């Protein structure tokens, strides 16, 4: 008996190879992937060893007041003598973490509810009652503008990072319920699900293996794009000034924007507003580009098309050139049985 690990290396290697080829074939998603990788790596370095990338503390008076960007102060300094580059960098792990955490929590909770609501809604069953309950609560949440709802919850909970995260998290999941439920409803009536059922596959396995696998592509793409949206929403709440305080021990981009904008310095010292704005812009853009690329990677159809166009010498890719629309494989394979049938 061979150990089950035997299958792993080749399979993972193959997937990574495909991943790489698809990325290479699509310059924009490659750029997005690269940007996200750099952003995440930078955030990690800042958390683990901040002194490598961040020259000053968040509230260190550098002695240079309201200086324009220079070699020493990459994004200049503000009226308090704080280094803006340091503050922008120190805000990165927080903003990135918030984006991923809120979108992730919404994905998991909303996604699970959406699966249940979509898959187990056979009329007359307990599942149908649960499904209706989930969907009506979702509708109620969706009928509020989510930003206003998040703001209201933040005000109720009090000013602070965690309060804001909780508030956005509470308003974010319904989008995923709708999205996932819609996809499940579309997929669960497709013939291949019935075919699996006819083959004796149990319902729970059908849900995981057939339904969830085919949801993955739109959901992951939406999730990636959504990280950017969360970031923007958080920054908006930060901009209004209820999320976190700036200047303070933990800077945040939205709060930075708000502070420098309200200081009225946008005409005199534009770099103060420009730096955190640019940080938000780049991060959101990176995730948007990556999201587009992920769609290509996760969908076997486009994936093969990309692989084909970039690496036609690759054996599996070569086989696939016979692929969609072409009758070549049929003609080749059917010649034999047809002749056999004619003889017999």
């Amino acid at each position: 008996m061979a150990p089950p690990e035997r299958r792993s290396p080749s399979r993972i290697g193959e997937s990574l190879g495909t991943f790489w080829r698809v990325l290479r074939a699509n310059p924009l998603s490659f750029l997005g992937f690269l940007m996200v990788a750099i952003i995440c790596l930078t955030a990690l370095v800042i958390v683990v060893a901040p002194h490598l990338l961040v020259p000053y503390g968040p509230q260190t008076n550098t002695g240079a007041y309201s200086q324009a960007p220079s070699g020493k102060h990459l994004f200049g300094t503000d009226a308090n003598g704080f280094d803006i580059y340091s503050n922008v960098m120190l805000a990165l792990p927080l903003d990135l973490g918030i984006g991923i955490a809120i979108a992730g929590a919404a994905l998991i909770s909303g996604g699970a509810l959406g699966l249940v609501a979509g898959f187990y809604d056979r009329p007359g069953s307990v599942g149908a009652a649960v499904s209706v309950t989930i969907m009506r609560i979702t509708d109620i949440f969706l009928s509020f503008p989510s930003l206003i709802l998040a703001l209201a919850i933040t005000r109720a909970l009090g000013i602070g990072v965690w309060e804001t995260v909780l508030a956005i998290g509470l308003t974010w999941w319904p989008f995923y319920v709708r999205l996932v439920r819609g996809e499940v409803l579309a997929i669960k009536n497709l013939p291949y699900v019935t075919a699996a059922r006819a083959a004796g596959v149990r319902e729970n396995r059908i849900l995981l293996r057939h339904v969830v696998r085919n949801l993955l592509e739109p959901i992951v793409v939406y999730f990636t794009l959504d990280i950017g949206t969360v970031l923007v929403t958080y920054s908006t709440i930060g901009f209004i000034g209820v999320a976190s305080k700036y200047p303070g021990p933990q800077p945040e981009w939205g709060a930075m924007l708000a502070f420098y904008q309200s200081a009225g310095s946008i005409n005199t010292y534009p770099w103060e507003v420009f730096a955190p704005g640019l940080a938000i812009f780049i991060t959101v853009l990176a995730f948007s580009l990556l999201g587009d690329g992920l769609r290509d990677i996760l969908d076997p159809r486009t994936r093969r098309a990309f692989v084909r166009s970039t690496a036609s010498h690759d054996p599996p890719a070569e086989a696939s050139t016979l692929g969609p629309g072409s009758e070549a494989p049929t003609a080749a394979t059917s010649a034999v049985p047809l002749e056999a049938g004619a003889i017999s």
Partner: protein
Amino acid sequence: MTEPILRVQNLSITYTVGAGVFQAVSDVSLDIYPRRVVGIVGETGCGKSTLAQAIPRLMPEPPASIGSGQIFFRGTDLVKVPKSKMPMVRGTGIGMIFQEPLNSLNPAYRVFDQIVEAIQIRHFREMGLVKSFQGGEVPFDYSKRPTTTVSSALTRSVLPDGVVEEKVKDRIRTRSDYRKEVLEYLRLVRINDPETIIDLFPHELSGGMRQRIMIAMALSEKPQLLIADEPTSALDVTIQAQVLTLMKDLIDEVDAAILFISHDLGVIAETADEVGVMYAGRIIEYGPVDEVFRSPRHPYTKMLLAAAPRIYKSDGSLRSIPGNVPNLSRPPPGCRFHPRCPIARPVCKVDPPPLAPVTSSGPDTRAGAHRSACYFPEEVPGLP
């Protein structure tokens, strides 16, 4: 005489849509014996696909529901089997081939993964991980099986019902074993170059190829009954011919009875031993294919055969059956064909005629003998 592998008795299926109740299948009885091919032919909406889906209980319930009747598969009434236990019956005894080869394969998986799922289900049954359905009481509740998934059982050997772990370990197969088996099935359905095909995704295959994969999937469970629901309807004529040739060859190789559903008279004539003609939810004529198609004894069958287009017909016009298919939420009383029937009499409007044996030389009561649900079968040959 051997026992029929499938015996459908007085089966009625209704669809409840809004306030309307549609009698999709009414009072259908059918026996299928081992290694026989039974064809069901009829127009769109006559209930033949509902019948096909009802046997493995695949139709959505609700809106569909079995009003009355029994479906005996190897002696067990599937109507009484709880839904949670049906996967075992399906995976053990009844294989199915569907109409739409284009959508019947999961686009996210390679051919290998499509087929291996079915093989694993059978394999685990054979290992005793999942009990085999041998007729009689369904052994245990499939949904409460302690083994969570096939793959986790493969590696962890978590067994229900105290199966000895060592015994199972010996019989656990590796991926390459499964690969060999999948390749065997690909060769069985006459796929050339299976080594390449096995690693392709469904969208890289043509319609005919996909239907072969579907057939391989259904066969890999080693079913005792194979239900083919219009397996060739979505394919173009040449591919259709190839798939039909394949199915005819397989009938001899695979030890299974086949229920073949089609709207195509020619396809049924080619493949089936016996044929049932359905109209408005009822089987109105049944018998050996040659007999039914050469000398039909129900006016509907006669007119249906006359309506089939023929290349060499001289006058070039197509015939149709006057009137419309009845609304199944309010079917006509008596014989459901009487509003369109040229030989209808008052009695036809009162009682539905029974499916009674007919032959020119007196009634033949053997199973599979020619039967017709018409009060005046002897008048049918005289119809134009």
